[in-house]
């Protein structure tokens, strides 16, 4: 059988063996928890607690500030210690609520829904919205917005992004192995809102056990289909996944809904299940601590807001000095200065590497070899786009489709001249977007 995939892409060392067979354990935070008011795309949430307030686990501490926004919930019980700027894993300083954990984990009480099939679409959306669910694959786009397309009848594909194409990460994998029923039930809740859609689980073929497990669980379901995908980065890129599963293509100006698709990653669908079925807001997540510098790489079920430092310690700390620490995967994750940051809704891993490959090699002249062109899943010419970026040639950059870049980093990864191609393209994209906003 030929596996479904997209054109381009790269095959980086996947490193998943370090942590993939470690069953997840629950980690209870010891220190303070930090909740940035902006951990999603859209307007930052508005704090509704004050310093000194006592809060319970699952209590809303910040409310959505507009439609494209998302509320935030306390993941522990305790006292609001401060509301002040803190550094997030993505490097920004963001106004954050700091909660001192009392270690009691007293919750507000959650109300399970007996029969979710009796809920109306509006009720489901409301529950998702009021539980603070956002795209947990990394982008953090509020899920209730994604699930409210203009014409729900036109949605034909609900795609569960089970690719987990980023090297090293195993949090989605563990979810699929440990809670496949929740994933399937979550998918059914989404399907309930889209009568013309079927649910697809797109899984890379390096996770045969997940393919098998989900196929087993869905074998009697007409509307649920498991799609094995070729193991290739960035298979889990939204546009690439849609292409692989449906054969349809979308560009930067389109939404997946324009191609009749809605894509949600594993963790998001689990969060939807928790929100709608169990009535639990988003306060927990699956988190991988891994890398060749980590003593005991493993997977944790964490409270959102837990400090990276604690999580690293929980994994036995470092066995050799880390030259690079990354929040997320090595291809699209964010480099950290130190572990003095706290997990947010979208955090999925802390990766500690003994080698800083991005700085190790010296940049040399482009030899026009075209490896970046072969690697680009968006069919771009990255080497030229990087030149245009360096020379500030905005017009040509756009003519050569620079704005279509999905920032996957495949070009930089494979460049034999070690040019920071993706960085250059990202920079120009940012400038162009900023200029457009000014207009």
């Amino acid at each position, binding site marked *: 059988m030929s596996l479904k995939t997209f054109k381009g892409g790269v095959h980086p060392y996947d490193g998943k063996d370090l942590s993939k067979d470690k069953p997840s354990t629950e980690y209870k935070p010891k220190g303070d928890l930090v909740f940035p008011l902006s951990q999603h795309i859209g307007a930052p949430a508005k704090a509704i607690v004050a310093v000194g307030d006592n809060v319970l686990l699952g209590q809303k501490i910040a409310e959505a500030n507009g439609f494209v926004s998302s509320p935030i919930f306390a993941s522990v019980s305790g006292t609001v210690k401060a509301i002040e700027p803190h550094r997030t894993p993505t490097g920004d300083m963001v106004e954050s609520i700091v909660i001192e954990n009392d270690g009691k984990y007293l919750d507000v009480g959650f109300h399970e829904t007996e029969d979710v099939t009796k809920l109306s679409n509006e009720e489901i959306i409301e529950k998702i919205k009021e539980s603070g669910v956002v795209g947990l694959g990394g982008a953090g786009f509020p899920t209730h917005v994604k699930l409210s397309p203009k014409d729900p009848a036109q949605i034909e594909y609900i795609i569960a992004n089970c690719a987990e194409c980023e090297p090293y990460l195993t949090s989605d994998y563990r979810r699929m192995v440990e809670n496949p029923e929740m994933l399937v039930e979550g998918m059914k809740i989404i399907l309930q809102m889209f009568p013309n859609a079927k649910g697809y689980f797109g899984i890379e073929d390096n996770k045969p056990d997940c393919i098998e497990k989900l196929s087993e669980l869905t074998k009697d379901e007409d509307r649920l289909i498991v799609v094995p995908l070729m193991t290739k980065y960035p298979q889990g890129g939204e546009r690439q996944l849609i292409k692989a599963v449906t054969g349809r293509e979308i560009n930067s100006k389109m939404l997946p809904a324009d191609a009749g698709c809605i894509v949600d990653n594993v963790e998001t669908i689990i969060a939807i299940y928790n929100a709608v079925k169990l009535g639990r807001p988003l306060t927990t997540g699956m988190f991988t601590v891994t890398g060749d510098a980590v003593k005991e790489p493993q997977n944790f079920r964490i409270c959102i807001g837990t400090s990276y430092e604690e999580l690293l310690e929980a994994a036995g700390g470092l066995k050799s000095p880390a030259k690079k620490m990354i929040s997320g995967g090595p291809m699209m994750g964010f480099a950290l200065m130190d572990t003095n940051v706290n997990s947010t809704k979208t955090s999925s891993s802390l990766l500690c590497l003994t080698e800083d490959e991005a700085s190790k090699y010296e940049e040399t002249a482009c030899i026009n070899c075209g490896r970046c062109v072969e690697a680009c899943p968006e069919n771009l010419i990255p080497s030229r786009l990087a030149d245009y970026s360096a020379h500030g040639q905005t017009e040509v950059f756009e003519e050569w489709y620079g704005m279509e870049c999905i920032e996957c980093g495949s070009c*930089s990864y494979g460049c034999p001249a070690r040019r920071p191609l993706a960085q250059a393209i990202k920079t120009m994209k940012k400038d162009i977007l900023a200029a457009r906003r000014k207009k």
Partner: protein
Amino acid sequence: MSNLLNVTSAPHVREKTDTQRIMLYVIIALLPTTAFGVYNFGLRALALILITVATCVASEWCYEKLLHKKSTIKDLSAVVTGLLLALNFPHTLPFWQAVLGGVFAIIVVKMLFGGLGQNFMNPALGARCFLLISFASTMNSFTYDGVTGATPLTLLKQGEPVNTLSMLIGRTGGTIGETSTICILIGAVILIMLNVIDLRIPGTYILTFAVFTLLFGGHGLDLNYLTAELCGGGLMLGAFFMATDYVTSPITPNGKIIYGIILGVLTGIFRFFGPAAEGVSYAIIFSNILVPLIEKWTVPRAFGVVKQKKEKKEGK
């Protein structure tokens, strides 16, 4: 706080292959035909190769030293240029002309235009053509087994019979590295297996030239003649090792195909309608000049972007 880690933009990992390794692969792929050239033409061929390579590397080193630039000889690209240039010499070429060729290739064609990656013309071929024009007699004198005679391609042009089997093996007169089709093909397979080149350029080049030969070669469907044209002269060496030179060929996938077609047609025109039997070198350096234009025409449409014609019609 004193030992903060280095923060860089993603991606944070890199593929192992670098420029030096790619150049090394090309050198390895050239070894079969180089070894055969030395076996075929004797130790003078080896001396010529070593002198040319040394000249190229030394030229680059001196140029960068004089201009206080960082030395780039470690990337091995000068070695590749020197080797390719020497493989394009008759083994009888005077050493001083080889040295002159090496200096011309590196200093004039490569370094003056900005060094590796910036030259618009293949340095080895630029220098070969320079020598062909300047020293026509020594560059065109081919001795084989102690007898000075015509190359198979020249014989072919004059309507004389040629032995295609010895052309395949390479037991004929010619430049050091062009005679053995089999050895060149072994090298080509190495390049393809090591992911250095793909068949887009050499494939379309050879195919186009074959079609051109059948149509305009004047021998109709004579397979023996076709094989001789394909194996003769610099076609195989040129198609796999020089037309595929990254720097001087289009980076766009469709551009590579157009480039291959242009090469095939030009080689055909030069060989069948020109005064000389050979045309590969000129076809390649001429096509090199067209590369920016070809690239401009062949910017691929990005993933998911639909042709804009319809939209324009709809909106006004």
